[in-house]
């Protein structure tokens, strides 16, 4: 059940700001790594962290990029561990307080996360907060290795191939997809269970048994890392304001994650 109620004395609190806000250890570490001092942002991060902890979602996250601070340096940091999986951006990204915008021609970000190394087979997922409406050709996040092991998701590619989930298996579509914004989660929890959620609501499920392995190629954002085509390709022109790479989650966890992320975005006045 989603709940937030921590104040002074929050779990692992190590920093108390002049405002009286007590930051969690994770928020403190992120603050120290990024140099962010904006109290609104820190409060939002702290609330997000406390919610992840209270809902048992923090242990699910391999990486979470909150995309706050407005520039490439601050956007590059992984909230779960700032010294791990820092994003490497190609040229061509535009960064702002609303998030990071790929140009659809050449821009991508390398997470440094190789699924076969970092993730659990048949229990993993990708969540991405999209702020761009309409069809955009390109892949939003993921990888396909030389053995055609898929690990990707795409949002509203076109009318024929709208939002699709290919987490360690063949791609399946959300066939009623049209204008998918907000938090979109592409997820697999078993060789015959894969789900797509949009804003916490399950919109597509696959029960096709997959025998694919985890992709052996770094996950990219803003394009797909398709090793057969030499790496970054099918660039996508969208604005993203949170990206998470995580273990497999269930319906309740997906709904809770959406609630937390939506509250996070709302507190930063960039919700969609």
């Amino acid at each position, binding site marked *: 059940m989603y709940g937030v109620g921590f104040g002074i004395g929050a779990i692992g609190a190590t920093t108390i700001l002049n405002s009286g806000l007590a930051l969690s250890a994770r928020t403190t570490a992120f603050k120290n790594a990024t140099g962010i001092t904006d109290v609104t942002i820190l409060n939002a991060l702290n609330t997000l962290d406390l919610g992840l902890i209270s809902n048992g979602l923090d242990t699910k996250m391999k990486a979470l990029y909150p995309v706050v601070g407005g520039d490439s340096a601050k956007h590059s940091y992984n909230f779960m561990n700032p010294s791990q999986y820092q994003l490497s951006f190609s040229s061509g990204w535009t960064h702002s307080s609303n998030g990071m915008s790929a140009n659809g021609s050449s821009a991508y970000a390398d997470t440094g996360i190789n699924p076969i190394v970092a993730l659990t087979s048949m229990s993993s997922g990708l969540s991405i907060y999209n702020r761009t409406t309409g069809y955009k050709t390109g892949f939003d996040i993921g990888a396909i290795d030389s053995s055609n092991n898929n690990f990707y998701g795409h949002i509203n590619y076109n009318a024929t*191939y709208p939002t699709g989930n290919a987490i360690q298996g063949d791609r399946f579509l959300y066939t009623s997809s049209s204008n998918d914004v907000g938090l979109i989660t592409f997820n697999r929890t078993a060789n015959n269970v894969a789900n797509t959620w949009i804003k916490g609501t399950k919109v597509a499920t696959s029960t096709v048994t997959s025998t694919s392995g985890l992709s052996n190629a770094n996950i990219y954002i803003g394009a797909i890392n398709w090793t057969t085509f030499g790496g970054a390709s099918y660039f996508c022109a969208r604005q993203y304001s949170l990206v998470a790479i995580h273990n497999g989650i269930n319906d309740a966890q997906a709904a809770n994650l959406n609630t937390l992320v939506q509250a996070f975005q709302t507190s930063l006045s960039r919700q969609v």
Partner: protein
Amino acid sequence: MNGIKLTTIQKEQLQGVYFAENIFFNCVQDINNDWFVFLSEEDKLYLRNTEFEWLNSEIESEYVPPILENPFA
């Protein structure tokens, strides 16, 4: 979309090179197989007073993307 058209030698000099702590050049080919690089305003700020500053003075030209095969075919 407009970008900076490069010679092959320029592309070889830039591709994959970091010009900020966490930003590297990524060049792509257009429909004629000419190389292009795209720079955001933040990228251009980082290029000032570096060996790559010349890019900020380049005139941009229209980029026509290559025709990609349907990835879902």
